[in-house]
């Protein structure tokens, strides 16, 4: 990460942190919370799906576990941050429990295997906890949107930081080697399973935290809703459209996604999924680098003409 990038990032976070003091509109804050949570979720998916190249279609399970544990502990009186940490820990524990088995699967088989895992969890939770979870009246009375906003901002920043660190680390390089050619990585002595599990731990810890923030943010929802495949699908869409395996991709993708979703929702519910479904296919087929690639190309165009190589 360049010095300019760090400076820009810090400035952006400081600016965003001051938004609740300046803007007192709930709709704007809600929109930003949604965007920040989407960034966190997509960025956490990006670690295993983008950097390590393992398309995890069961990501919602970890988001859901984080939400479930956080919600339960928090409503029982645990401080929310502690509850979220516990939620992340449970998500990681589940990841370690199934990761060894799931990573025996490669490519598309990993994808459908994790999809099945996610569904197993969703259905089981739906069966065991069929009741809607609503905050007690006392919590609703003291509900502060700004707190939720800062929490979401913190987790989104954490996820971006994690990926920024990962991209330059030995772990990140190892993951990219696995993505390019798993057999070759194994042959050159990269401990493939260990690296994949490490990536999964970071990814699911962040997903668990994002789930915790979701549980802290929403006033009422069905517990199984947080396990729904749409959370995974959102993460996959956002990451691919933004630029899979890049730092900026999930951020860019999330902003674009939530903007279009909210804009279209005014007139047509779910219509954004039609657009994003088509866009996603187009990106897989024609533009594997996503929006980030478009942005890079656009920026290089005028500069390339003016100063070929300074």
């Amino acid at each position, binding site marked *: 990460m360049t010095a300019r990038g760090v400076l820009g990032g810090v400035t952006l976070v400081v600016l965003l942190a001051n938004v609740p003091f300046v803007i007192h509109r709930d709709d704007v804050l809600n929109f930003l919370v949604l965007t920040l949570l989407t960034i966190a979720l997509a960025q956490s998916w990006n670690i295993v799906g983008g950097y390590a190249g393992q398309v995890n279609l069961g990501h919602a399970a970890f988001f859901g576990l984080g939400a479930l544990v956080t919600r339960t502990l928090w409503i029982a009186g645990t401080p929310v941050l502690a509850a979220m940490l516990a939620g992340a820990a449970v998500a990681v524990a589940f990841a370690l429990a199934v990761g060894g088995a799931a990573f025996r699967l490669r490519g598309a088989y990993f994808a459908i295997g994790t999809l099945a895992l996610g569904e197993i969890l969703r259905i089981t939770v739906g069966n065991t906890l069929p009741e809607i979870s609503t905050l007690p009246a006392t919590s609703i009375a003291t509900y502060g949107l700004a707190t939720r906003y800062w929490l979401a901002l913190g987790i989104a920043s954490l996820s971006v930081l994690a990926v920024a660190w990962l991209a330059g680390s030995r772990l990140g390089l190892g993951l990219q080697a696995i993505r390019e050619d798993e057999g070759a990585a194994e042959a050159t002595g990269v401990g493939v399973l260990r690296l994949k599990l490490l990536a999964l731990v970071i990814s699911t810890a962040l997903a668990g935290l994002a789930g915790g923030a979701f549980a802290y943010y929403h006033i009422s929802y069905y517990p199984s809703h947080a396990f729904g495949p749409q959370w995974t699908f959102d993460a996959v869409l956002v990451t*691919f459209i933004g630029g899979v395996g890049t730092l900026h991709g999930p951020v860019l993708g999330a902003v674009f996604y939530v903007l279009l979703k909210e804009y279209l929702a005014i007139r047509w519910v779910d219509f954004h999924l039609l657009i994003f479904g088509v866009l996603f296919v187009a990106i897989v087929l024609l533009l594997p680098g996503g929006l980030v690639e478009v942005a890079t190309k656009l920026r290089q165009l005028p500069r390339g003409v003016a100063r070929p190589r300074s």
Partner: protein
Amino acid sequence: MIALLPQQLVLGLLIGGLYGLAAAGLSLVFGVLKVLNVAHGELIMLGGYGAFWLFALAGVDPFASLVLVIPATLALGAVLYWALFGWVVRYHEETRIKNSLLIGFGLALALHALAVRLWTADERSITTAYAGSVIEIAGLTVPLVRLASLVVAFALIGALHLLLTRWRWGRAIRAAADDWEAALLTGIDVRRAYVLAFALGTSLAGAAGVLVSVGYSISPSIGLEWTLKALIVIVLAGLGSTFGTFAGGLVLGVAEAVSATVFGGPYREVVGLVIFFVVLVARPQGLFAR
């Protein structure tokens, strides 16, 4: 509870036939093109709405609507191949499967959203005049419509088997599945065999959808569930044998019925998924081998 088992088994067998039919199309496409179309369930959903529309707008009997839905989904399959899946067949196998999975994923989302726009998110089923008819056999109740669906599913599987063994292009499709390069060297236009296989797979999905809409119910979000059912059946039955796939569907139907009786109705789905994951992990490479 165990007293209910025989009745549950009958219902399990009846829906198992549809699982088999749903899996046959996905299995054909995967076996021949090495393309994993995770939008298969959404194609089933479209077939179901095709029948629903024909019934609601023109009063066409759902079983008769197969005559229209099958050719329409054949054409749809050819279009989807040309527009989407045909692009990935030039990659080597691992990339091909992964990219096809992603394309199928995007297609599934788009079709789901489109269905919500066209038909709303409500659950629907086709209620014909004979919808409630049942036959009593040895104290067991057999819904007539579901029995007819099973028979039609079996007939379609038989027709597929005949196509793949007797028809010139059917044999070409099998040759392309075994070894596409050798098939090319035999003078077979492999691209054309691929289009045909994909179109056939899509029309099998469409036909399955019609049967689902008449004996059961459809909504825009049934796609994922049916894709998973088809995948589970393929894992159980392997690739390559048409009747084997059908039998795999029946096995899944029965397994679900047993688990629903033993663990309670809500766990019907979980058992199949657990079997799927365990078998998948136990045979990570040889899974879809013939």
